């Protein structure tokens, strides 16, 4: 069974089409990078995938659960880091993770803290954290209960290079143990280095869906510019 199934997903705001008929399948253990220019529809797609936004049409299944019909069960199966994570400012990271574990019913706080390397900072109030530390806390909260599907919306933004490297390794290890990961990013290098597949989106449509081995010596940047350029030409003609 696929970890994520998206069928003909569409989102319109009046005449504006934010997402235009996306079809996508992600298998367990697969790490998919979702890339595209600003305003391409990445975050809108991920918000629909996580049950934060109603699609105009289409269907989404997460671990075999319809996200819209069973939002509570879908949340049990996923870990999600939004683009701007919200946390309790007056808890420490450790207390926040304890809270998340109590909500989810299970989890390994120590290994989540170890992966984020918050160290002694885990016992400081979140309100005193830098942007990067807040993001690490949100990441730890998303992985603490080892979800079937992990959805990260620009989650590597604001992380220092060593942390980014560690997160990439951790994501890889999660995939190895069967978790499906979708990671939206605009950093092509990140996508190229860690993803099994790269899905490119532009103007709400998937313009390329390539595996790492399908690049045939081209860099992701070349493929990206080529495909984005093609869609721009198509839309202008």
């Amino acid at each position, binding site marked *: 069974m696929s970890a994520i199934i998206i069928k003909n997903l569409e989102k319109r*705001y009046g005449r504006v089409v934010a997402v235009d008929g996306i079809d996508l399948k992600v298998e367990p253990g697969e790490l998919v990078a979702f890339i595209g220019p600003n305003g391409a529809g990445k975050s809108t797609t991920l918000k629909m995938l996580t049950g934060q936004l109603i699609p105009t049409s289409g269907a989404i299944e997460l671990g075999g659960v319809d996200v819209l019909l069973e939002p509570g069960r879908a949340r049990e199966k996923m870990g999600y880091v*939004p683009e701007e994570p919200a946390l309790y400012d007056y808890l420490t990271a450790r207390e926040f993770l304890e809270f*998340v574990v109590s909500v989810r019913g299970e989890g390994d706080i120590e290994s989540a803290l170890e992966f984020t390397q918050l160290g002694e900072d885990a016992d400081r109030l979140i309100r005193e954290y830098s942007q990067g530390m807040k993001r690490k806390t949100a990441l730890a909260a998303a992985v603490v209960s080892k979800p079937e599907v992990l959805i990260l919306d620009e989650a590597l933004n604001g992380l220092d290079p060593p942390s980014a490297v560690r997160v990439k390794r951790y994501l890889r290890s999660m995939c190895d143990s069967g978790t499906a990961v979708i990671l939206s990013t605009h950093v092509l290098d990140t996508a190229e280095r860690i993803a099994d597949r790269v899905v490119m989106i532009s103007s709400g449509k998937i313009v390329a869906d390539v595996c790492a081995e399908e690049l045939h010596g081209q860099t992701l940047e070349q493929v990206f510019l080529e495909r984005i350029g093609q869609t721009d030409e198509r839309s202008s003609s």
Partner: protein
Amino acid sequence: MLSFAMPILAVAVAAPFVSPVFLGASEQGYNATVVSGLSMRLGWLACAAMSLHTYTALLRDKERKVLDPHPAQPTNLLAYLLIRTAYENLSLLLAGLVFMWPIATESMESWLICSIVVTGGWTAGLFLGFPIHLGSVWAAESPRLSGLMEMLRGSNPRMHAALIYAPGLVLAVGGVSVWAASSAALSLIGGPGLHPAFILVPFAVSGLAVSIMPALAKKSHFRATLVLAEIDGWYAQLEQPDEERLVYMEWLAVRLPYSLKEISLRELRHGWRSLRSWINGGWLIGFVCAAAGWSDSPDAWIVAGTLAGGGMVVVGGIAIKLASNNPSWLESSLPLNLRVQSLVRFVVVWLWLQGVILLPVLAVWVRQDLVAAIHLAVWTELFALAIALVGVYSSRLLSRGWGLYVPVSLAIWAMSVKGITP
């Protein structure tokens, strides 16, 4: 702790001065009808306030954003939100009971009976608020109700219609139950009214509401996020970039000399963009005062003026908010002439206070006569000048200014109300 105690203390200070306006004491003591009428109005007020607080706690609280990615149990979450909302707004109930304390000095029994009515209004607002707001999420998505929502929506998105009218529905149901309770209270105090058992109607209605809460929570908690995102998306699409830049009363500053214009524009823009709810709230309070003044009673202008005074004490605090919100680096790197800045802030705050004044003056003029309206206008304008002055001087102490502003403005309010009460 201070924010909990402050409204209670403020009401305790003001109640002895302003209660004659609302209770109309005579040599025979308080009239039973007036006393039960006051408890009914306070019950309604408590119900309306709790209805809005439950809306915020359930739908617009920042906690929703934190919890959204996680599979929180909707029933547990609802129980937590209910307890939190009750605790956070307990001071409102206590302030209402303290406000009626002058009744107790004459008859403790009457005060206790009225307290049951007010507590009933507060409880009904709390316990009806949660299921009705959850129900409004279901109604927003229901295909069967889409025709009705389309009719009601006005210029809002269809889904928003259900959410907009939900607080009104809470007040309508809670309000009827409070009316029944106050009528029962009247019969208990010694007047004609419903059977005394009706005093428990708001609690019975609350009990019924509690019984349907868990099912509604399971059905609507997660859906609420989706409905809110749709509504916000709809508004974002309509937003005009110019709209954000338009500032209330900015035209008044445009033709001023340069030295005044710069500071005036800064105050007007800062206030409108960061404290808009205070300014709009002034107009809302003005509307309530106008309703109080919409009466044939010769004392209606005094009631309207007393309420307007209380409203101006609240809105006048904007002077301190303005000063304390200003980044300190801005003040030190762009030093302004303190005297000019104070003068400008005084005028701007006085202008913003006009929202509280204009509507009740108009209401009194229409329902009574020009003389009563002039009395009210002169009294409220003088009061507005005094409040603006106290606000501006207090604002020099930044957020510590509340310590000066609250007691001084309340004392001015209490004394000036005593001055106009026959």
